[in-house]
């Protein structure tokens, strides 16, 4: 009896261990952010946060740290970038998936394959040529350059297309009987039906946009366009003393928005992710 109860505890033990292991790095960042930078640099970091050091959050938000500007601005750039990318991708993918699914037109599959190709070429593999193209278009160091190239999305198009393919034919027939044109059908039936997909995609794409590193590093050298992820790596890379408490505070601030989006929209996110994308 005793033994079986112990056995039943094993899953809990493993899961709790995993939860702690996942949270540990964040806890260090939270605790460290409130402590003295010089003490951290000497290796004297405590696991207990010091409430007296909370002023550092205000400090980084307003003043930033050596190597990077005020964090509020970086957070704003990140938020703007993540929102434009997430909403832009959804706004572009939905109509194109609709077009290839519900219409027959010349070069339909060619167009579809061209879009599918973007899936094959992550920006990382064609870094320099994309930069050259951006500079020919005079988009270096602009918010447009930061976001627009990331707005084309094969994943979202594929996901929407799959959902549309599973819609029963009767639905379309019924709509046609009612005299609904393609645009009305899109507005009244397709968009409401895709609600869960859109919500899930929003989470995925927001996180994707927020977490970009290589692209902003390359295309925006103006410090005013630094995202918070770029800012934090810059803070660590300064050739003078790194202000570790500020780095940790910025790390915590940088994590809050995407984690909040994931957790708040957890239900749709998990559903949309696992039901659609396979």
């Amino acid at each position, binding site marked *: 009896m005793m033994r079986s109860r112990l056995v039943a505890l094993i*899953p809990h033990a493993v*899961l709790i261990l995993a*939860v702690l292991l*996942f949270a540990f*790095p*964040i806890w*260090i960042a939270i605790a460290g952010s409130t402590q003295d930078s010089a003490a951290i640099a*000497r290796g004297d*970091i405590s696991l207990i946060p010091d409430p007296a050091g909370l002023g550092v959050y205000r400090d980084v938000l307003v003043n930033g740290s050596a190597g990077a500007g005020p964090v509020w601005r970086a957070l704003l750039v990140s938020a703007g970038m993540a929102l434009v990318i997430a909403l832009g991708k959804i706004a572009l*993918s939905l*109509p*194109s998936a609709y*077009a*290839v*699914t*519900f*219409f*027959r037109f*010349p070069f*339909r599959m060619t*167009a579809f394959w*061209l*879009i599918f190709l973007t899936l*094959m*070429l*992550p920006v*990382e*593999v*064609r*870094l*320099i*040529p*994309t930069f*050259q*193209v951006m500079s020919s278009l005079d988009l270096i160091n602009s918010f447009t350059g930061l976001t627009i190239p990331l707005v*084309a999305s094969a994943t979202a*198009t594929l996901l929407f297309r799959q959902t549309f*393919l599973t819609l029963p*034919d009767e639905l*379309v027939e019924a709509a046609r009987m009612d005299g609904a044109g*393609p645009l009305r059908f899109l507005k009244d039936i397709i968009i409401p039906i895709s609600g869960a997909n859109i919500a899930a995609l929003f989470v995925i794409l927001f*996180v994707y946009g*927020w*977490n970009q*590193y*290589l692209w902003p590093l*390359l295309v925006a050298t103006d410090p005013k366009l630094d995202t918070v*992820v770029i800012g*934090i*790596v810059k803070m*660590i890379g300064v050739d003078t003393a790194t202000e*570790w408490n500020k780095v940790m505070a910025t*790390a915590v601030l940088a994590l809050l928005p995407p*984690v909040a*989006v*994931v957790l708040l929209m*957890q239900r749709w996110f*998990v559903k949309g992710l*696992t039901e659609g994308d*396979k």
Partner: protein
Amino acid sequence: MERRTLFPGRLLPALLILPQLALTVVFFLWPALQAIKSSLEREDAFGTSTEFVGLENFADLFSDPLYVAAIGRTALFCVCVTALAMGVALLLAVLADTEIRGRAFYRTMLIWPYAVAPAMAAVLWVLMVHPQIGLVGAWLNRIGVAWDYKLDGTQAMALVIVAAAWKQVSYNFIFFLAGLQAIPKTIVEAARIDGSRGFHRFRTIVLPLLMPTVYFLLVVDLVYAAFDTFATVYAVNGGGPGQSTQTLVLKVYLDGVVNANIGSSSAQSVVLMAGVIVLCAVQFRYLGRKAVT
């Protein structure tokens, strides 16, 4: 699979697809062609002179033992990250799938790292294991473990693998959990009544039903490890010490951006594009057929 019911018209669908198509051509197709062109040229850093050199950049690349070594290193890195991330996620998902109390809590606490940027994963891990300032790293050195990923290539590799896998576990966990929950409980029950136990039951009944998820995650994780981990590797040690954590994508960046060697970097881009196309073809062959056609 095609829809049988369709709307008539040609102009409307063309207009609907145009924005997406335009972006694809401008930001994907054009750069891809540009990469092929630049890979056949030699150009100075400031772009003031350009010379056609044929396949010289490719020949230089493959005759360079360091590039060949980087290919092997990248493969090793991808396999380790994928195996670690999938193994841990599967274990946790199996545990969380049982009728256990606090399931929702565990799920929430295990999926949030999905939101962590690859660069941030590196930062968080560095703060933890830095040999001088990191809590764990400094402790290791105090108890006599010679932990220093700035000098020890094997340790550096281990660190970037763990940091990269750490972030990806959440994603895999979500999929495994959904896959497990989609398996009808009656099948598992029937096996239990037949006397099939524990791991044997998992191996013979559950795992085969989970295989589609495993294949899917395999491709996703490999692509993640190969490309999305740039920021992790770059922020941990910039590819060092030595070249012990220099992956192919990092090399494209270092040669193209830092060293301004456009020709070689473009040639590497072309090689990578070919690699990705092969990988996607494999994915398409095994998994995508259903989804795409």
